[in-house]
């Protein structure tokens, strides 16, 4: 009994040392900065107008953001983008995972096809897609023109709505593999005996999919949806590289607008308020999902 207690105390001491560096990075690298951003959001701080100083303005940056049409459109763009691309990624990822799971031949090819887009830097992928959609040189534009689906000089990037297509394509292409891998893991935990039994009972593949695979896959789907949703809300790289928010500001996402406000307009107070808004949005999601994930990761021992 005593020995157990000593071991436990020693373990706790050891744990503190082991955990300290990671904790330090987390606290210093993200918690303190987030708090500092929140603090900065309460001040008017325009780096191009130093003679105005840095006056305390309370919540007026947030009030300005709420009334700012550009912020509201960025919010709308981001939300709609997430709501459209995430289900698509889940569906395609599921299809891919099923193919990888049941493939007898060609598994290495699948693995390659899945891992390469995922490993390629996001901006590189976005550049490739931008090239493919280019009005002059783009192979997609050319293909559409050859089947008569697009007019002579259709410029995807000059239309406020059409410009979303290259962004969506680049994002879905890059992230579907990640979803597929997560779902594959889920698929691999499903006991094949269940499928065997159902097949012997005469259930068709669609029926088995709906009643066995999907329900058992739900946890993995939930995890994948959570990660993808969070990433979609934070979207920056693809939007910046593909359209830079253009034409005008019609493909501007929340993170992109915050970046413009901070690094191009140098309105650090206002940009911080925008960043806080984005943070709160993702925090709301994170709160829900982290509890679900955390519980599943640690298991029942806590």
């Amino acid at each position, binding site marked *: 009994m005593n020995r157990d207690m000593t071991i436990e105390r020693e373990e706790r001491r050891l744990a503190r040392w082991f955990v300290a560096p990671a904790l330090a990075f987390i606290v210093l690298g993200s918690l303190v900065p987030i708090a500092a951003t929140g603090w900065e959001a309460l001040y008017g701080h325009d*780096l*191009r*107008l*130093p*003679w*105005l100083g840095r006056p305390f303005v309370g919540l007026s940056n947030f009030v300005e953001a709420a009334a700012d049409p550009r912020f509201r459109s960025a919010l709308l763009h981001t939300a709609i983008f997430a709501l459209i691309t995430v289900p698509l990624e889940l569906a395609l990822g599921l299809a891919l995972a099923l193919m990888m799971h049941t493939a007898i031949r060609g598994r290495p090819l699948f693995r390659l096809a899945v891992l390469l887009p995922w490993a390629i830097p996001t901006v590189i992928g976005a550049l490739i897609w931008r090239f493919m959609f280019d009005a002059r040189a783009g192979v997609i534009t050319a293909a559409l023109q050859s089947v008569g689906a697009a007019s002579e000089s259709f410029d995807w990037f000059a239309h406020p709505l059409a410009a979303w297509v290259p962004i969506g394509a680049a994002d879905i292409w890059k992230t579907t593999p990640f979803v597929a891998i997560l779902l594959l893991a889920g698929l691999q935990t499903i006991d094949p005996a269940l499928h065997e039994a159902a097949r012997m009972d005469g259930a068709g593949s669609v029926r088995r999919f709906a009643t066995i695979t999907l329900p058992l896959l739900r946890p993995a789907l939930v995890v994948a949806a959570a990660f993808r949703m969070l990433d979609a809300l934070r979207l920056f790289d693809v939007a910046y590289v593909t359209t830079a928010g253009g034409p005008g500001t019609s493909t501007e996402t929340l993170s992109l607008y915050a970046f413009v406000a901070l690094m*191009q307009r*140098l309105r650090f107070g206002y940009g911080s308020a925008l960043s806080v808004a984005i943070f709160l949005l993702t925090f709301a999601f994170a709160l829900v999902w982290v509890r679900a994930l955390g519980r599943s990761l640690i298991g029942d021992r806590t």
Partner: protein
Amino acid sequence: MTRSDLSCERRDGARRLCVVLAIVTACSASCREPAAVTRLTLSASALGGEAQLLRRQLARFAERQPGVDVELRVTPDAADQRHQLYVQWLNARAADPDVLQLDIIWTAEFAGAGWIRPLDRSGIDEDDFLPAALAASQWRGVFYAVPWFVDLGLLYWRSDLLPAAPRTLAELHDAALRLQRSGATRFGLVWQGARYEGLVTVFLEHLGAFGGGLLDGHGRVIVDEPAAVRALTFMSDAVRRDGIVPASVLSWQEEQARFAFQNGDAAFMRNWPYAWVLMQDATQSRVAGRFAVAPFPAASEGRPTAALGGAELAVNAWSEHPDLASALIRFLTEPEQMLERARAAAQLPSRRSLYETGALATALPIPIDQIRRLLDAAVPRPVTPVYSELSEILQVRLHRALSGQQAPAAALSDGAREIRALLARTGLAADSAPP
């Protein structure tokens, strides 16, 4: 593999990694150390012949100043991209580039933000530089940049269709209408009407023609006054009522307007001097040798106006070699270097004396007497640190009026109100205390 093999492998790997990291860090540290030579960095445009010219001149400077080496840092050619890069560097307090080529409308902004150094007034030949360019180089009475070369808005006119340049705005209007109706040209007049800075320069010339302006001498907003409304109404009528200006100009920048004139589709074009050389190329242009330039004419209440563009040179506030940087600026803005630049890059120097001597006559493609008239008509854009926001407000309102979404008077009154609010909230209103 046994356990000990794995751990040995891991230790070796770790050791190797440490060695590599040490070497790399050492290299990166040493690569940044300056040699015995002092290194200046100049950030300037290197379009076409400019790069070679600059390198020649910089080599000459290095000969004069032994122990100094000047590196030319090339920046993107598009103005807004270069602006963004400068903002990023200067805001981050980067020590280089030491000398920056600024667009004439950026000086006040950078000066107000404290990003460029005040210059010693005594080192600047205030008598020789163009007054309009000098006005743009100062902020709150202090010099922050030296004018390098200038750009002027010109009216190009078809010398084969008209005996002389129109002397008044009415003449321009009538001639454009006549030539268009007779079928001699498709359009009467073309200018840059897209929603960008170019539109503001076009508007500035119309403003001057009617005796109006954006800000008055005291910094008060006057863009909603009757003269300005008349100017915008003239532009709007030309597009929407009379049709002498095609509606497609609303998406045109400099090049599209040039193509229209170059193909013989327009009797008049408002553009910058760069177009002259390109349009004299008979293999590409249908109007080679058949056009001339003049200042944009005025109505009875105004005067001929040429919007002033161009570049200035300034010293980075965090430069580690401010005196050398100032010396470099003085060198590059010497008459000889400016003359060479005029010859090599066909850019208009900012020193008046050069236009008096005959030296420039052979250097520039545009006839010198025409340029002299233009210089007298030069008008800078408002010199204020928030010019880019001001311009954006104006661009939106002008474009709305020209595309028929708003009446000119209402558009300008809204624009004036927004500009006044901008100046008030940034502490730059005419009656507020100076920053």
